[in-house]
């Protein structure tokens, strides 16, 4: 796992997501998902480039399917942006970096 990316589990999910002082983007992914692999490097870049504005977290749905079920995730990759424990935005499907940032930026603090 790249530096700066948080790995979430069923037991750590609530504590980490609710206590994050920055918006936290949770990437629901699995090993067998091709599009998930394509966006992994994009998420690493965002984590490295914008550490003060956003936290990037990943949740393996194979291991922690209960969390995916709780948020009605029916397709991966799905990315949920949380702030103060509330869902701010939902992104379904792999997207290029520019388009992903365009969607997320309105919900992030200014750099």
């Amino acid at each position, binding site marked *: 796992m790249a530096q700066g990316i948080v790995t979430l589990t069923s037991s750590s999910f609530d504590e980490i997501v609710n206590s994050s002082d920055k918006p936290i983007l949770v990437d629901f992914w*699995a090993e*067998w*998902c*091709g*599009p*998930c*692999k*394509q*966006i992994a490097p*994009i998420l690493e870049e965002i984590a490295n480039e914008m550490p003060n504005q956003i936290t990037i977290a990943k949740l393996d*749905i*194979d291991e922690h*399917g209960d969390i*995916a079920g709780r948020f*009605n*995730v*029916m*397709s*991966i*990759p*799905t990315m949920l942006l949380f702030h103060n424990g509330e869902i701010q935005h939902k992104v*379904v*499907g*792999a*997207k*290029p970096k520019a388009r992903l940032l365009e969607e997320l930026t309105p919900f992030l603090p200014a750099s």
Partner: protein
Amino acid sequence: MSNAHKVIIIGSGPAGLTSAIYTARASLSPLVIEGEPSSTSDQPGGQLMLTTEVENFPGFPEGIMGPELMMRFREQAARFGAEFITEKVTKVDFNSRPFKVWIRDTEHTADSIIVATGAQSLMLDLPRESELIGHGVSTCATCDGFFFRNHEIAVVGGGDSAIEEAMFLTKFASKVHLIVRRDALRASRIMQERALNNEKIQIHWNSRVSELHGTDKLESVTLESTTDGSTSPLGVTGLFIAIGHKPNTGLFTGVLDMEDSGYLLTREGSTYTNIDGVFACGDVQDHVYRQAITAAGSGCAAAIDCERWLEHQH
């Protein structure tokens, strides 16, 4: 990376990456503009990125996962010096040489071009279809099948890819309805037998999906008979669409000769298009075979055609 290249390859499925391996080994330092991430078949690596086990690619007797195979293609091209840009070409100008290719405002030029943009899955084109993607309607069985454990779901289509998806989905779903427009399957014999012998698969012949229902997520669909137009409801929470493909040739409209269906035309027995120095390979010019191995083969042919053509320009 300079913006002037000997060859630019547009597309990165089996055809594009094979032409990259060959042109790289011929010291042509190809630039591969590989496309951008998406969850449809229009993405770097091409249609195999959305498949699971590939059983018919020679050299892999145990089978290999589609994304893994494409990753290996890419590594092999990179090993010999191919360069990659993970973006989409937005405009081309093949009227004069060097040829020009744009990614938004960035211009790249090349002495030759290999077009390997492939084909992508057709959608049903029904109202609400796009808003239900990710909420029951899926373009990627391998990505989403997991979420339909013990659900009843449907696959639309009668070709190899429809059967392959239906078979894959039986691992999760309690029942898979296969919606087939005609009274026969287009799929190869081995795939047909697998579908017909799978007790979790129920085939609906002479049927098409005419409506999608459900507010936040898919709850049911309406089936319409293709013979008498009668309709019936089918309660499914997942709908996987595998009804065929369209070539990714929008960029080349009015530039390269194509069939009415949009597939590029190549000169008989070669990969030459109507423009000297522009070559086409893979599914973008093939609606007959459409296999990873035939795409790879034509990618190799395009690289050799391109290399020989470049030699004759000096």
